[in-house]
């Protein structure tokens, strides 16, 4: 309302200074502009009463957008909407908290109709939804424009302050003192300079007028906070760019060198340890009832591939890059590649077996060979026979059509289909299914399958003679492998925010203006917060020049911010 009226008022001050439209207090002498009836009891000191870009007359489209985002009111609406949106997202767990669910049925099944509505409104992925991201982007825009709109005029106003101010400017501050002074104006003013300097004020005088100011930097606090937030938000957005971010959960069986996909790094889990607190370490109430883990640790070695990395026919050449005992609060960190302890599995995992090809009728043995679960050889020669690996299933199962498939890439139920060629076999060879694990052998009926494949007069079998021919990996550790190139900027943003908060909240910008004229002292004071302490300081300074004033008497109403 009053802003709009200000557009049509003459903005030339009686001191002769021509102010831009939107100015509240004359840039030169501080006299309030506009109609006298609009003036409140106290002056509007925000941004020192200067005009902002958003107060232009005849705004263009760009001006309108600028005006929209430069409004603190809009900024507050954005904050409140983000706040409410964030709250909505915590009603039910977000989809991202589950590893494998079918969200479309899960929410209905777990939480009933309310859950179904929640899912259909898209609230099961609130924080990735278009409207939430839009809110964050708008807050970013508001941060930039709000700050620019205010900081430049404020900077101008604070660097060009006049010492002598209009009487109206002084007497309508929130801290005011008008009293008699017998001394010569210049002598009195000269006397008050010293105690002010002692209190840390920078003091300028102009005859019988004085301006004392301290901690102006505190005024930049809010803008520093906003710059920090912008850097933070941009860094967060940048994490979505390809190449800056990698996040995968991988299994590392103990004792095996495993490649980290999409990188030239390999990681070996030398030993995984899990420890639990003993009964003595637990409080009595828990003994025998609760199990508390004490330590999860993966002794890891990270290798970097130096040659033959992409050539499948050759073994990659690895050199050790670093070693680290990865614990929950201590990830491995090598040039931005990080490995976090995520989970573990103590079920032994079959790594390799050394079966023997035997003639079941004669008992004749054709030699032992090593069959690696992960990287089995393509062809194996055992005596006069050649075995060609046709298919490999890590986690054997049958699909809906009864066809064999691998249910997962983990060697839970490994199975191999060989084509055996050699003496006394059909020319095209004989197919043979091999399940290295005894349990799978009976569960999936290896004998029956092979009888079907090779006919009843087959005579070759693969068998493991000795337990020492079976190699297990004792446990598996699951690590979360991450690369996040934007993180330093996230921390930089956060650090700047913190700096701004400290500047803005733990110091206050304090200014005292005074004029002594015709035997009368007129003092006005302004601070952006903590008026209580400010009034106390003014009283203290005046005491030093033998003027006793009550703290409450300089409180000119409403001085609360």
């Amino acid at each position: 309302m009053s802003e709009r009226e200000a557009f049509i008022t003459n903005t030339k001050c009686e001191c002769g200074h021509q102010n831009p439209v939107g100015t509240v207090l004359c840039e030169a002498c501080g006299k309030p502009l506009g109609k006298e009836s609009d003036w409140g009891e106290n002056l509007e000191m925000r941004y020192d009463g200067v005009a902002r870009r958003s107060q232009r007359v005849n705004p263009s489209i760009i001006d309108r957008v600028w005006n929209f985002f430069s409004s603190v009111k809009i900024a507050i609406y954005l904050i409140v909407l983000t706040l409410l949106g964030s709250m909505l997202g915590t009603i039910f767990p977000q989809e991202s908290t589950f590893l494998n669910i079918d969200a479309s049925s899960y929410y209905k099944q777990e939480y009933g109709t309310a859950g179904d509505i929640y899912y259909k409104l898209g609230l099961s992925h609130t924080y990735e939804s278009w409207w939430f991201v839009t809110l964050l982007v708008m807050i970013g825009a508001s941060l930039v424009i709000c700050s620019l709109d205010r900081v430049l005029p404020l900077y101008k106003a604070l660097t060009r302050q006049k010492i002598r101010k209009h009487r109206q400017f002084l007497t309508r501050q929130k801290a005011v003192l008008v009293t008699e002074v017998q001394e010569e104006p210049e002598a009195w003013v000269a006397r008050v300079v010293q105690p002010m300097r002692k209190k840390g004020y920078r003091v300028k005088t102009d005859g019988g007028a004085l301006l004392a100011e301290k901690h102006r930097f505190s005024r930049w606090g809010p803008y520093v906070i906003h710059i920090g937030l912008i850097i933070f938000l941009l860094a967060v957005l940048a994490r979505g760019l390809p190449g800056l971010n990698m996040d995968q959960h991988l299994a590392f069986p103990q004792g095996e060198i495993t490649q980290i996909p999409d990188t030239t790094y390999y990681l070996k889990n030398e030993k995984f340890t899990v420890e639990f607190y003993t009964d003595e370490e637990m409080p009595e109430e828990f003994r025998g009832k609760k199990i508390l883990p004490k330590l999860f640790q993966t002794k890891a070695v990270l290798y970097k591939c130096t040659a033959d990395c992409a050539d499948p026919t050759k073994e990659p050449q690895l050199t050790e890059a670093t070693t680290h005992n990865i614990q929950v609060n201590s990830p491995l960190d090598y040039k931005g590649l990080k490995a976090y302890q995520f989970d573990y599995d103590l079920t032994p995992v079959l790594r390799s077996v050394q079966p023997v090809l035997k003639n079941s009728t004669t008992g004749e043995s054709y030699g032992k060979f090593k069959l690696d679960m992960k990287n089995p050889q393509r062809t194996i020669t055992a005596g006069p026979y050649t075995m060609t690996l046709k298919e490999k299933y890590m986690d054997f199962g049958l699909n809906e059509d009864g066809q064999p498939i691998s249910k997962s890439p983990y060697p839970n139920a490994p199975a191999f289909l060989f084509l055996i060629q050699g003496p006394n076999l059909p020319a095209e060879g004989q197919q043979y299914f091999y399940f290295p694990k005894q349990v799978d052998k009976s569960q999936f009926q290896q004998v029956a399958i092979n009888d079907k494949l090779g006919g009843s007069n087959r005579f070759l079998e693969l068998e493991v003679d000795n337990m020492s021919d079976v190699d297990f990996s004792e446990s598996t550790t699951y690590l979360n492998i991450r690369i996040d190139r934007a993180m330093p900027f996230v921390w930089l943003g956060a650090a700047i925010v913190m700096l701004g908060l400290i500047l803005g909240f733990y110091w206050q910008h304090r200014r005292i203006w005074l004029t002594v004229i015709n035997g009368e002292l007129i003092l006005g004071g302004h601070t952006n917060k903590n008026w209580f302490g400010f009034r106390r300081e003014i009283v203290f300074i005046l005491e030093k020049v033998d003027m006793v004033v009550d703290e409450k008497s300089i409180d000119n109403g409403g001085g609360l911010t």
Partner: protein
Amino acid sequence: MSLLDISSAVFIAAFLLYSGSFMLFTIAIMGRKWSGRKPEEHTARWGKIAFIVSSIGLIFHLIYFFTRWFGAGHIPVSNMYEFMTFLSMMVMVAFTVMYAIYRKVILGLFAVPISIIVMAYAAVFPQEVQPLIPSLQSNYLKIHVTLAALGESFFAVGFAAGLMYLLRTVNFSSKEKADRKQQRLIEFTLFSIIVIIGFLGSVFAFRGAGYETVFVRPNVTIDSAGQENSTIEKVSYRMPPIVAPHNSEIESFQSFLGMKEPLFEAPSWMNGVNAGRKFNTVIWSILSGLLLYGILRLIVRKPLGAAIHPVMEGIDEGDLDEITYRAIAIGFPIFTLGALIFAMIWAQIAWGRFWGWDPKEVWALVTWLFYSAYLHLRLARGWQGRKSAWLAVLGFLVVMFTLVGVNLVIAGLHSYAGTD
């Protein structure tokens, strides 16, 4: 005596000293008209004694904290009991800081009881020292939790001062619509505080009496392989069951005032055997709160707000408004550092991501956004006085939900904090 025994004893001493200090603050304010001395002199004298007692209490509280730290081998902020005792200590620290700046005796009358209530709430939880699980074994436990609690404690003092401002300025004799609305809101705020006291009262009364009733509930789940798993869930009620868990059977029932069975069963959407127990606790809290409120109303014979209002007489409302704002302005950077920045750094180290929209994280952000809105409204839109005071009161509700409500209702990754 082991360090931990000393620790518990000193904790009780701190509790008693705070209670004594609260009574002394009450005498300082309420007794100023009857003492025969000049009211200001009386208040200053007794206020000083009260502050000294509260400071001794704080020293005892600190002794509790450090003896428990050395006794346990890790900083005692790792479960709900320890966190709440720490929070109550930080409320006293924040109060002491604000008192040192403003020297307003009346602040003690409202801030000290917050600390006492939080301390009593801590005693609801199991008090044993638990060894730290791997995710908590970090130096960030020391700075993230402590700074977050300190920031929140300044918000608590802001809440106390905001409530005082409202009690001071709301016109309790007016019959006008706007004033009536304010009166009702104040009354509701006070009633909510009384419900919390009612909750504490019923917990300790039934615990003291050794009450226990046990329910069992068969629970059938179907796991991923299509296998049916049947388990029996057991829940022990420490308050007479007005409401039983959904679909449950009584295993043992201790009768209470002739009550032989639960009055009704929890609705089906209250899934889980503990939901029924929590619902039962809520009912008991409200019942005992109502009882307590009724008794207080019978004593004072007018709304509680109107009864407290005269106590605030002569207190400068501008000072109260400034204390509210100042407490929040001091707490905000501390809260940002502790509850968000250090939280993010720790999350990055422990979980590999600095932010995961875990409910606790979201609510810390909600708290931060709320106080950001408060600061913008006050500094840029000139919201002072009443509106600002209401925001300070509401803000503390958000803080408490973040600290307690999230664990009770939502859980998530911070669930190791363990709640009742």
